[in-house]
């Protein structure tokens, strides 16, 4: 259990990459990329977690400021990451639409320009 959360994060990154490698459709590849990105969210939050009833880093009238909270720094990074990744995904999808329009295919294997 001590490293299970980290392993799930690593698994998501690798699973997403595997999906990109075997992809036959650019949209499929883009979606797999966002799965791999989700692995980074899990990793960041796992690093900041504190067990034993630590609360969220938001104080109010009921929770007076104390230091027994989960790490807010990684949460801040993750939340901006999520919003920015959505716009980057949108950029990639727009590229895929244009590729489909110009080349009539979105299979990476059929796109000569992507051949290695």
């Amino acid at each position: 259990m001590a490293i299970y959360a980290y392993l799930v994060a690593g698994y998501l990154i690798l699973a997403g990459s595997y999906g990109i490698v075997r992809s036959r459709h650019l949209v499929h590849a883009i979606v797999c990329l966002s799965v791999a990105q989700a692995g980074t969210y899990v990793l960041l939050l796992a690093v900041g977690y504190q067990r034993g009833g630590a609360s969220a880093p938001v104080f109010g009238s009921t929770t007076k400021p104390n230091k027994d909270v989960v790490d807010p720094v990684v949460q801040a990074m993750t939340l901006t990451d999520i919003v920015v990744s959505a716009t980057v995904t949108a950029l990639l999808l727009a590229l895929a639409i244009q590729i489909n329009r110009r080349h009539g295919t979105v299979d990476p294997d059929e796109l000569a320009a992507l051949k290695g």
Partner: protein
Amino acid sequence: MTALVAVALTVVALAGTAVVLSDEPQRQAVTLSIFGTTLVVLFVVLQAPDVALSELGVGTAVVPLMVMLSIRTMRKDRAQHDEHDGEQDGQ
């Protein structure tokens, strides 16, 4: 609490696998949305309400919607393309 975290993590891993293994991009829009929901649950369990809110909007709604619209646009473009080719062949 720890058990809850473990369950949430396992569900996220399974949902992620499902997204990667769905070969049809249309179906992926749905599995991606489910994957986003499991992430929201995980983030709440990990005491990150801010992150969960962010993922709720992006992961379950915006990105799957854009994926769905892109696929429909591509299918429409392809149909028009084929139709166009057919006309040329007929001439």
